[in-house]
Structure formats: C-alpha cells, structure tokens
C-alpha cells in the first residue's frame, strides 16, 4: 500500500478496523487510533494518507516502526505553527471566521452559538433539547474562560473556581450530538486547540514551531492557561476512541493540516486566507469541522486578552 503522508503521532502496532466512512477507515488497537484517509481528507497527527479518493478496504493494519519512517513517506509535523500575531488583526480575523461559520456551516452544527437565528433550524423536540444542553455547557465554559483572572492578579482560589466552572461545562457538553464524533466533543477539541494557541502565545514562542505539551509554558499566565487546559482535558475524556483521540491530540496541540492552516491564518493572515482556511475546516465531516471551529473561535475570543 502506497502512503503519501504519515502523521507524526502514529504509533507502530497491530490495529483492527473500528469504523468505515467513505473517505476514512479508522483502526484501533484498543487504546490508540490510526486513520487511513484519502488525499482529500489530508494529513493529520494520526492519519496515514493514501492516494486516490477513497482508502482501499481492509480489516487490519499492521504498522512496524520501519513503516513509519521518513524513508517511507513524508512525515507530517502536526504541531501548531504560529506566525507573529497582531492583536487588532487577530480580532479582525476572528470576526471573519465568525462570519464564515454563520453563513456557511451546516444548519444543525453548533454555529447557532454564534447567531441565535440559526436556532430556528432546530425544529423537533430532540434537536431543541440538544441545543439547550449545549448552551448550558458552553455557558459554563464561557464563565470559566472569560472570568479567569490574568495571572498577575490571579489567586489560586479564583483560578480553581474558573477551572471548576470550565470543567462543569465540558462535562455537560462531552458526548452531546448524533454521530460517532459528537458535536460536543468536536467543540471541546476546538477549545483545547484555542488554549494551546493562547499558551504558545504567552510562551513567547511566536514565529517558531513549538511543542504545546501538557506542561504549561509562558510564565504565570501560561500556567493559568495550562491549568484550564488540564481541567478541560480531564472533564472532556470521552468513551468513544475517535472522540477521545481527537481531544487528546488537541490538548497536545497536535492538529490536522487544515487546522494548522486556519490557526496560522488567524494569527497572521488576511481575511481571504481566513475564509479559505475556514472553508477547508468546514469540509471536515458533516458538522465536525463547524463544531470544532465554533469551539476554537469562542475560546479564542473569551481568552483573547491573553493572546499577543
């Protein structure tokens, strides 16, 4: 099997088929996930990209260490790449992302959190109950993120209170949604990536590639953000291996190429670049891309005062 790109988080092992979609086959060894995806889906931290429009059908995947080396295919570096960030431009770019999400995302995605008129598309009692639970969860996350004091003024109790509120919201949201990767989990992954962006920004690692690991970076502010991130990760762990992997990767700042592009565009691009990158993210899954991007946008906005 020819492989075009290997995600840098793919581990050797013997994997069995977990789920099959048109453009992706997901395999698991019980703890970890590997996805065999088409070029249209593109590189990701756990993706093996194969040529063509659909991965070849198979039930098992055996990956040896030598199968994953750079001599086999290009190894995809999934860490976040932040360009120099201008606050004013960053805010403008967030507005461009919001406009794209409101105008173009799936009607039953979580983009209703950005524009209440979209709630009209949730017509039956079940959809309305889903929207209500999401709003409750997101409200608590907002209370946590937006009210977290800046580190200079932070008391341990205030940070703990913010973390508790955020975690409560994440627990309400985790697993909310119809499919195998529920909308709530995609949203949480977006929040985690936003926190990684903030953390890197505080760490002053602008312009360099950085490993945004679980260890907090960036001085006192970075430590506060790190605690928030751990609170989200702890509360957001999901029973589904697909969602759990996405959340774990997001917490480590490991993202698909489309997300890398969007984050880079938000930090240093112009409006057109943001819109184009946002559209690429929206094309991920049915609602997944929109749900993820909504989480990213809102968490960046609520934590914007840290960015720069």
């Amino acid at each position, binding site marked *: 099997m020819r492989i075009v790109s290997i995600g840098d988080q793919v581990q050797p092992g013997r994997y069995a088929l977990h*789920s099959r*979609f*048109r453009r992706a086959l997901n395999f698991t060894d019980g703890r970890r996930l590997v996805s065999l995806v088409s070029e249209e889906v593109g590189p990701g931290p756990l993706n093996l990209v194969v040529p063509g429009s659909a991965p070849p059908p198979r039930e098992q995947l055996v990956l040896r260490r030598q199968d994953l080396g750079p001599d086999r295919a290009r190894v995809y570096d999934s860490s976040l790449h932040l360009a120099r960030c201008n606050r004013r431009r960053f805010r403008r770019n967030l507005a461009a992302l919001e406009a794209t999400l409101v105008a*173009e995302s*799936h*009607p*039953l995605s979580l983009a209703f959190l950005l524009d209440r008129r979209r709630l*009209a*598309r949730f*017509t*039956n*009692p*079940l*959809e309305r*109950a*889903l929207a*209500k*639970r999401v709003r409750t969860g997101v409200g608590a996350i907002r209370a946590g993120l937006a009210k977290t004091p800046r580190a200079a003024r932070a008391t341990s109790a205030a940070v703990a209170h913010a973390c508790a509120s955020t975690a409560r919201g994440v627990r*309400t*949201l*985790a*697993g*909310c*949604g*119809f*499919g*195998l*990767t*529920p*909308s*709530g989990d995609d949203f949480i992954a977006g929040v985690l990536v936003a926190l990684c962006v903030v953390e890197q920004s505080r760490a002053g690692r602008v312009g360099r590639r950085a490993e945004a690991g679980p260890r907090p970076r960036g001085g006192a502010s970075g430590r506060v953000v790190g605690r928030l991130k751990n609170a989200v990760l702890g509360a957001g762990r*999901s*029973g*589904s*291996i697909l*969602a759990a992997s996405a959340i774990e990767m997001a917490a480590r700042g490991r993202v698909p190429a489309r997300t890398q592009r969007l984050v880079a565009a938000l930090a240093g691009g112009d409006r057109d670049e943001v819109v184009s990158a946002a*559209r690429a993210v929206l094309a991920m*899954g*049915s*609602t*997944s891309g929109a749900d993820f991007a909504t989480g990213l946008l809102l968490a960046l906005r609520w934590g914007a005062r840290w960015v720069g």
Partner: protein
Amino acid sequence: MIVLGRVRKGAYHDSVALMRVGRELGAMPGVADAALMMGTRSNRAILESSGLLVPEFEHAGDADLLIAVKAANADQAGAALAAADTLLRAAKRPGASAAPGPRDLEGAVEALPGANLALISLAGRYAGPEALKALQRGLHVMLFSDNVPLEVEVRLKKLARSKGLLVMGPDCGTAILNGAPLAFANVVRRGDIGVVAAAGTGLQEVTCLISNRGGGISQAIGTGGRDVKREVGGIMFIEGLRALAADPATRVILLVSKPPDPSVLRAIRRVVRGIRKPVVSLLLGEGRPGRDPVTLEEAALAALALSRGRSVESALRRLAARDAAFGAMARGLRRPRGGRHRYLRGLFSGGTFCAEAQVLLRDVLGELHSNVPGRGVQRLADAWKSRGHTLVDLGDDELTVGRPHPMMDYSLRNRRILEEARDPATAVILLDVVLGYGAHPDPAAELAGPLGEAAKRVAVVCSVTGTAGDPQNRAKVAAALKKAGATVMPTNAAACKLCGEILRERA
C-alpha cells in the same frame, strides 16, 4: 403516547444521516418524535429530557447507536422502528449518484459530446466557477444552486449574453426545454406557448393549467427570482423573451414574475413592444384588474385563448362566472364556531403561490402577515408562529436550510398543519400541493393523516398543481385529498378566493 427504543451495538453512521433518518421517522403516521443518537451519557440525558429515554438504553455505551420512537400506539412505533433499519441501510449504501460517472464538468462533456446545457446544483459558493466553465465551453446553464453571490450572477449573465447563451438561475428550480422537464417541472403537452418566468412555482402552475386545458408549451425558461432586480437588470428575462420571439415553434409568449424593479420593467416593455407575437404578462401585484391578468390562472387562460385565436375577454368572463359561485360554496364550508375562529393560515410550499395569495387576499381580509411580505403585508416576527391572517412560504431559504424543500419533505408542513388546526384562532387552513418531477412521489399519503385531523376542527382548502402525466397523477392526488377532508380547488387563485369568501364575514 408510547415510546419504544432499540440499541444497535457497535453501529455507527454519519451524523447527518442520523438526523435525516430521525426526521423521516418523525414524519411517519402517528409518530410524534424520533431520535437516533450514539449512546453517550449526554445523549441519554437529552433523550430523557425529550421523553425518549427507555430502560433498554440504560446500559448502552458510547459506541452503541440508540433508536427511539414516540408514537400514538405500539403498532405505529414498531413500524417506525422497523423502518429505521431500512432507512439506515439506504443511508449507508453508496447511493446511485456514487456510481462511476464523470467527476467534473470536463468529464461530463466528454461523456456526452454534443450536450449544450449544463445543470449545476452545487453549494452556492462553488456553483459560480462551474457555471463560468460551462459558459466558456459554449453551454447554456441552468443554475439550480442558491446563495450564488450577486456580483457573480451579474458577471455570468453578462458573459452569457455576449455569447448568445442562457443562464437560468441562480435559484432556478424549473424549466422545460424542448419538451424535457428540468428539476421541479411537470409533464405537459408540447405546443406553441412559450413561457419566461422569474417565479418557479408560477411557471409550474401556468404550464400545468395550459396543458390541462388542451394547450401546449414550446419552451419554459426560468430565470431565478433575482434576475428582475435592479442589480441584475433582467438580463436573462430579456434574453429569454428574445429567444422565444425568435423561436418558430412559439406563437404566444407568456411572462410571469413577481414585480420587477421599475427600470427592469421599462426595459422589458421596450423589448415587448418590438416583438410581433402576442405577449401576455403577469407581474404579480402590478396588474390592473379588468385590463391585465391578475392571477396565474388568468394569465394562463389568456395565453391559451390567444394561441387558439379566441377572445381573451370571454375566457376571463367564464372565469369570473365560476368565481361567482364561490360565495355559495363558502356558505357550505362555514362552520358554526365561536368568534375566536376567524383567521386564515396559509402554509405554502411554493413562493409564487404565497405571493399570489397576498395579492388576492390583502384587500379582502385586511391585515395579513407573512415571512415573505409583499406590498401592504406585515412581516411575521417569527416565521414559526402565526399571527392573525398568516401566509407562510415554507420553502423560503430561512426555513429550508439543511432540510429538503417542502415539496419533497412534508414533515415540517404536516407538523405546522396540526399546530394551526389546534390553534383556536384558526378558521381555515390553505395549502398548495405541487406535483411533478422532483416533488414528493406520494404527497396524498403524506398529507392525508394531518389533513384528516385538521379537517375535523377547521376548514381545509387546497389546490393541486400538476397534470395527469405527472408521476403522481393529479386526479388521484386530488381525490385522495378530498377523501381526507380537504376542499380541493382547481388553482391556487381559486383556493385563495374561496378562503376569502369563507372568511369575509368573519374578518
């Protein structure tokens, strides 16, 4: 109500497929609500708050699919659960559209050399570039897509005009070219009447009326509603008109549109003056009663009379004689009810019908409300909630994002019919039923249950747009709706006038 549930261990589907199947189950007879979700803790809490949690779900895991149905009785719930499996299998199966075929315009042109029209139905933001490619290859374009930016539409239409090509759309849902129905269209006779319309269901209504009365259609060209706005300048409306003027098979030209911008209207009139064929024009809301056609049926009958060399006036007089009988008919339909039952609730799937109803009823009933208000009509604050006399276009973009058009999917309208029937302020429910290609294959089966329920409480009046040649067969659908308790009228205009008579005394 009874709730039944089933757990499918390890089953999974795309989230949109689950939502769609849930809505399809919700539209089945007797089913009040349905859900298909993965069995996460949060989803079980959501099911509980929606009254859809059953004991079987207690031990389900995150990777299990939960299917729940709330229905009037166990049989209906069981039938819906059984249908869920079938619908899910169909959702998982690679669709017919996934069969090997051209993947792009170039491939399609290679596969069908000699084709001279491209029908484009993509998300709006991708449709413009594809339409441009088609025009550059010398193809006419029917652009089914909506949400194409205005500046793109203008650019495409100017390019098409320079190349002598047509761009029908964006948001063009209906056309009949050389006898071939495209998108939402009906099986009509071929003949010598050519139609240009910036109103999709208006085009369907006039072509069906002409065909049902023995006339025929040479070409029916849709332009998309935005074509007659000032920004576009009616470019394709005028090009369509010129194409029909030059077409030897067309003897009479019929124009149908919602009111164009005055500058566009002047341009159209200039072109019409230079055409040596009879031209009938219906600009909804602009016609002068007694001189111009005011309704779709008047316009269709006028065109038909001209194609047969007969007097338009006598055709319209016959129509007026028919309308005179509506008063007596209405008296038979009025029910002895309390004073609170006094409002009309029009639930339309066709935007042109909603506009026509506003024109016909605003002077009869007084204050009207609509989500797409025309002149003299109040805008509804919330399209989901009626106020006074209300005429709702359920096919409006605001209500159709993410769901099929109400001509294809009756679930939304059925729910609304029942809501309106339960509202003590409702006296009459007015509906349109549109048949033909693209429309629901069996609308009578979809509507019969809710109509029957509604007809026990209020008067239900509807029109059926279609022909005997349509896959659904107009006569059969009309008979089934009548059996369900509705009063079936021959046209939307007739249905509106009857409603006006029923409510005249109550208004």
